[in-house]
């Protein structure tokens, strides 16, 4: 009898997996819905701005679009909630509320259980700030590291390595049949944002009279990023004195994308070398790339080539980098036994 009533209690709650990212945040819900939003939150600067934008708060692309009328926040810079900054905490809170509202239909349960993925390195700091941020909108919460959520989602729980290349951080995680501890997880800060900045600098150097900004550069990267030899030259339209002009940015794109490789290769080899020697060859065949950076053309092949010097290797990218973290977090939340949930 008790089990039946417990099962009923579970059904009354909506379960969600959330991946809080620097650039994008995603949510996967037990009702089958999945949504993502750019991690921007903006409040109108004054009552005129409020009238212009027509809402008390804007999110994602809409917020970026109206940025001149808004106090715009990207609260997860470097993958860390800026705990202590009231407005940033408020922004995270609103972002989570917004994400939940995107997947929560009227007939869904009011109570929400969430597993939230955060960057591995700042686990504790984020957890504290998250609890504050989520308390109003989730009834129970568990926090896991982002790469671990990805690993769980693809069932890579033993003898595998996940490299989650986000905007603010590249998170590494070795899975060996248990929850990864600190030694199994590493983070480097040269990630997607770093590529953007590098590309911006290179373009500014080469095309000093062209008009572009960091947002444009980010879009170029998302569309054309590559490592090694490109299939064709990368040419983009950039205004010069107001006139859209074709620019060849192939070399700059390659240099910028390859700038994050040394750190990734070094840490990847270091973590594998520290692993049980008997299983190092198994890990080399189970390297999984996740996050937006996994879409860089030629990256998986490059890393596989580096690893193949040590023996047979396999590097795969997840099918859906946008939702791999939130899907993994949802899978974990759904598998989590009832007794392990604690009220926020």
């Amino acid at each position, binding site marked *: 009898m008790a089990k039946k009533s417990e099962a009923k209690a579970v059904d009354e709650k909506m379960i969600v997996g959330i991946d809080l990212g620097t650039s994008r945040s995603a949510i996967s819900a037990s009702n089958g819905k999945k949504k993502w939003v750019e991690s921007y939150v903006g409040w109108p600067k004054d009552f005129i701005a409020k009238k212009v934008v027509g809402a008390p708060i804007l999110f994602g692309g809409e917020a970026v679009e109206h940025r001149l009328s808004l106090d715009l926040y990207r609260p997860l810079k470097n993958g860390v909630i800026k705990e202590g900054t009231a407005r940033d905490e408020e922004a995270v809170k609103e972002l989570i509320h917004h994400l939940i509202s995107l997947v929560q239909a009227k007939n869904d349960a009011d109570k929400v259980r969430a597993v939230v993925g955060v960057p591995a390195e700042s686990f*504790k700091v984020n957890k504290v700030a998250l609890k504050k941020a989520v308390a109003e909108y989730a009834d129970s919460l568990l926090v896991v590291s982002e790469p671990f959520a990805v690993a769980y989602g693809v*069932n*890579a*729980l033993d003898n595998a390595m996940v490299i989650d290349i986000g905007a603010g951080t590249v998170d590494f995680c070795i899975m060996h049949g248990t929850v990864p501890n600190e030694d199994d997880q590493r983070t480097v800060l040269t990630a997607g944002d770093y590529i953007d900045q590098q590309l911006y600098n290179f373009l500014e150097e080469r095309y000093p009279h062209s008009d572009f900004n960091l947002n444009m550069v980010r879009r170029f990267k998302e569309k054309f990023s590559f490592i090694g030899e490109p299939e064709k030259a990368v040419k983009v339209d950039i205004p010069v004195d107001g006139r859209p002009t074709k620019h060849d940015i192939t070399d700059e794109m390659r240099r910028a994308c390859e700038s994050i490789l040394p750190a990734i290769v*070094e840490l990847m080899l270091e973590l594998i070398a520290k692993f049980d020697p008997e299983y190092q060859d198994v890990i080399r065949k*189970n390297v999984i790339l996740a996050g937006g950076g996994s879409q860089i053309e030629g990256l998986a092949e490059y890393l596989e080539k580096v690893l193949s010097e040590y023996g047979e290797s396999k590097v795969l990218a997840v099918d859906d980098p946008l939702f791999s973290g939130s899907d993994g977090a949802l899978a974990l939340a759904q598998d989590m036994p009832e007794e392990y949930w604690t009220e926020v």
Partner: protein
Amino acid sequence: MTIRNPTQSGRLKSAILKGVYDENLRIDGDLPPADRNGQILTKRKKKALTGSLLFLAVFLLLASLYLDVLNFREQPATIAGRTTAQTEFSLGETGVVEMSAPALLPAYSSAQESYILRQPGIEPVELNAEKLLDYSIILNNANVRLSSVFGLDVQTIVIDPGHGGKDPGAIGALGTKEKDIVLDIALGLRDKLEESGKYKVVLTRDSDVTMSLTERVEFANSGRTDLFISLHVNALPQKRENLIETYYYGPPQDEETLRLAEQENRGSGLLTRDFENMIKKIGNTFKEQESATLASSIQHSLFTNVKKYDKDIADAGIKIAPFVVLLGVDAPSVLVEISCITKKQEELKLNMPAYRDEITSFLAEGTTRYLARRNLHVLKGVENGQKERSKSS
């Protein structure tokens, strides 16, 4: 994409899910105690245990009061205020607690209460309130992270750009001065650390002014400094390679370090009578633990990142040295030799704002990593898996 691994099983998943639950409790600082079989107690079991303990505590209190009343009736009050009348409380199969009940309840009686804990197969252990409140066991244990035990946080970070004003510090072959490099990096580091909005970051000097070592120490100690980071650039004409090293306070480990300390301490403005007070500060377990951990984190971040640009750079590691600023400042403190200005290539790079900005980022990364992990370990460990090489290097 789903990775199929033949070794996986439902059991593996269950263990991992339980691990996630435990990990979350651990981060909360709310890890439940292990039961007799070494298993972590779930919330429900914990509640039941709490209830039992509460009941036991109430029972002990009532029994104690009852005995006090009996003792008061049987014996006249004395100034000594205590007898050895002992009562035994049965704790089921787990053992027996004998309690020395005071004959009357003078104001100071609570500090004198003693308890004897008896368990089958174990020698009786006498516990008294004074011993229970004695933190010296923790304070003197070098393996216990005091910042974790006491949950100490960081609010104010003082960054000390070395030298300045009339004192240029080391000067490179091209005329680059140490005082200018470290000031620029310190200003950048302040901005980066303040980005989080969590810390107040102040500089001992934010312009090219002369400042003695004692003034720097006084500056740090007059505010509510929680961390102190002193920035310097090495000058080692006798060495071929560029190197990075980080120091915290301690007796010198080698002659070279002693010479460097002499060089950096020059013009400290200290008097002989100050020395005794300084020595008293030696042996501060907390400061040493945190300084060593911060040094380890900064050194690791700086070296591993700079090595990506400069394959020949040497990791001189974490060292212990008697620098005046490290000893004088009450808060955990480190001195970082971020680079070596006597290497011509390095001097050229130090003149580039982008390179200085990179170094600033690596310093910020090391400091942030330390701050993020500060209260994670109750037992002292080595940050980043890097071994402290203070004694060997």
